[in-house]
């Protein structure tokens, strides 16, 4: 060891010393300083205990034994806009193009627990995603989709309990038993307070609803992932890669602790916890992050929580290329960014991937742009050859050194959060929120001083640009959806609705698991907004402290 140490030092002081170096700071996009060279001396752990084999503890090289030689990742493009039938048509288009799973984007009112006909929904219905107010919309959204064969991901958080209930009731009405329904609901409320900022109630009752769903799924819908612990939004809000890693794993720790506090056995629910990462521009940093995440989770689950089942220790994840890395300027360049990011995701061993479309900084993607994004994944899978061997970058001195360092720095954050009393408490005091705002501001400053480059924005700028075709959402859709919702509300059995809402309210108060009462409410045409209103009345409303 000492010989290596002196060798690298010797090389730095001789051959490298007089070599020319460009006058820039060599650091990742997260501003993590990078050495000129990595050598065996930079690896801190031994092969067996730190790297090991795919499908074996500590899973650094992959959660499954055969990885992409056994099965490619799931190509899952996020889609949703307008009315339920518009998104249903996009789903059928994507499945026809060879996509294997669905991923649903809901509009802001649905995500925030408002019906389409609510005052606060004005101007937002069907804009950023599909509008779903009641079970009728959900039936249209999944029309002619075989729910026992296709897995679905639903990106929804504070109103997730209602949307999951709706999905299960759609399955029920189509004769598919809940045990056969597979998919994921994002439902990660902790990161909402940290980053994405979609909430109804304060953090503590929000966590209670998440844990209700974890418990319910473990018992009633065993193929469903009740929470997708998400770093994606933390990164989009401006965190560094290490902060994304640290805060996401800390969120995971909080969910595990809360479920165990309820008396659940860790091995009964942990195998269904999944993760969702951001894949940004810095290729090596992203590959290292994914490898570090798997190792950290395995070690925490085994050592801290005493998990026995390997399924509890393996971190399986979806990833999405970084939306915030795309530029409105020269949008075709985004195709290249997405391709490199997607390659990093694959080299990092993700189980499922969404590639952004080149036009997403301007509007929701057009069909053509989505096609290029999906083809990007197919080209990586079918043409590049990177799927032939498992974890092809494992053993690279740089990758292993970065993996070790990211784990170390993220664990330091987790130690600090533990000292604060855990993530729930840290969020209540605004700790992760402030850390992220600080990083976002630091990066913006670096960009403006020219220390970090974005091609087409602060470098290689062209004054005249030809606008590309973007998707337009017809404002008439909003009115049509409002009329539909009003008609449904007039025609349903209002006594049955009131009874169902009373049951939900009682469960809020008694601590009974909320999911059964919500499923029953959904069957009776109770809406997203009505259940959310019960939450507002029973649990209180959270307002943004507006930390800057």
């Amino acid at each position, binding site marked *: 060891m000492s010989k290596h140490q002196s060798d690298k030092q010797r090389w730095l002081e001789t051959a490298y010393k007089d070599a020319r170096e460009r006058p820039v700071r060599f650091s990742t996009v997260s501003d993590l300083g990078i050495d000129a060279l990595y050598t065996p001396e930079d690896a801190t752990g031994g092969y067996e205990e730190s790297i090991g084999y795919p499908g074996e503890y500590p899973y650094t090289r992959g959660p499954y034994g055969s990885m992409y030689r056994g099965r490619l990742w799931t190509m899952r493009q996020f889609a949703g806009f307008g009315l339920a039938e518009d998104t249903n048509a996009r789903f059928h288009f994507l499945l026809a193009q060879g996509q294997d799973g669905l991923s649903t984007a809901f509009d*802001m*009112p649905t*995500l*925030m627990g*408002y019906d389409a006909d609510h005052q*606060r*929904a*004005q*101007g*937002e219905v069907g*804009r*950023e995603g599909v509008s779903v107010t009641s079970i009728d919309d959900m039936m249209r959204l999944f029309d002619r989709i075989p729910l026992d064969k296709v897995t679905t991901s639903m990106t929804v958080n504070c109103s997730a309990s209602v949307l999951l209930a709706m999905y299960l009731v759609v399955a029920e009405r189509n004769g598919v038993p809940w045990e056969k329904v597979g998919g994921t609901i994002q439902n990660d409320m902790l990161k*909402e307070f940290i980053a*994405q*900022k*979609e909430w109804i109630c304060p953090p503590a009752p929000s966590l209670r609803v998440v844990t209700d769903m974890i418990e319910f799924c473990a018992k009633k819908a065993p193929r469903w992932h009740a929470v997708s612990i998400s770093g994606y939004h933390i990164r*989009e*809000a*401006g965190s560094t890669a290490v902060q994304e890693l640290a805060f996401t794993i800390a969120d995971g720790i909080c969910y595990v602790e809360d479920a165990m506090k309820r008396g659940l056995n860790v091995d009964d629910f942990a195998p269904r916890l999944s993760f969702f990462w951001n894949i940004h521009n810095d290729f090596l940093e992203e590959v290292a992050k994914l490898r570090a995440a798997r190792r950290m989770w395995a070690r925490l689950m085994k050592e801290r929580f005493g998990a026995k089942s390997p399924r509890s220790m393996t971190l399986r994840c979806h990833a999405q290329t970084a939306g*915030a890395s795309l*530029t*409105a*300027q020269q949008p075709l360049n985004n195709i290249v960014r997405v391709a490199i990011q997607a390659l990093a995701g694959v080299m990092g061993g993700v189980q499922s991937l969404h590639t952004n479309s080149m036009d997403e*900084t*301007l*509007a929701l993607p057009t069909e053509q742009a989505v096609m290029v994004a999906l083809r990007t994944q197919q080209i990586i899978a079918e043409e590049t050859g990177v799927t032939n061997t498992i974890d092809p970058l494992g053993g690279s001195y740089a990758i292993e050194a970065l993996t070790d360092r990211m784990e170390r720095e993220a664990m330091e954050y987790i130690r600090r959060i533990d000292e604060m009393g855990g993530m729930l408490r840290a969020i209540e005091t605004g700790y992760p929120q402030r850390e992220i*705002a600080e990083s*976002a*501001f630091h990066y*913006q400053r670096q*960009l*403006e001083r020219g220390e970090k480059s974005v091609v087409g*924005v*602060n470098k290689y700028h062209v004054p005249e640009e030809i*606008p590309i075709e*973007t998707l337009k*959402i017809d*404002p008439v859709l909003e009115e049509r959806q409002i009329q539909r919702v009003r008609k449904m509300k007039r025609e349903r059995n209002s006594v049955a609705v009131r009874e169902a809402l009373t049951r939900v309210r009682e469960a809020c108060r008694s601590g009974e698991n909320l999911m059964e009462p919500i499923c029953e409410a959904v069957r009776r045409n109770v809406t997203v907004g009505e259940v959310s209103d019960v939450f507002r009345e029973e649990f209180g409303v959270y*307002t*943004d*402290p*507006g930390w*800057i």
Partner: protein
Amino acid sequence: MAEKRLRIIVAKPGLDGHDRGAKIIARALRDAGFEVIYTGLHQTPEMVAEAAVQEDADAVGLSVLSGAHMTLFPEIIRLLKERGAGDVVLFGGGIIPEEDAKKLKEMGVKEVFTPGASTEDIVKWVRENVHPRD
């Protein structure tokens, strides 16, 4: 007599939670010496107009990334006029297509910044275009 410090409200109307830009702008304006009030997320047009009047703001910067700008901006303009504060300088930013930005300017939004605008440009623009009211 010392020049009056400009008071600027940075507001996030609508339901989306994309506050990275709003916070960076708020902080850059504050660092540039302006008095900045950040409203926090999920404001209704009424809340924004009310804050502008209550705080006697010289300008209001709106950040919208949900696509609802063509509903929210005009409503805020209307409410400001209704409250006798039609002279408050309104500017904004977000995911706003060129043609919408043009329409918003015709309605009275003084400037619309789109992705890639630097905080330096925005600070400079505020210095040149916002003046103390009354």
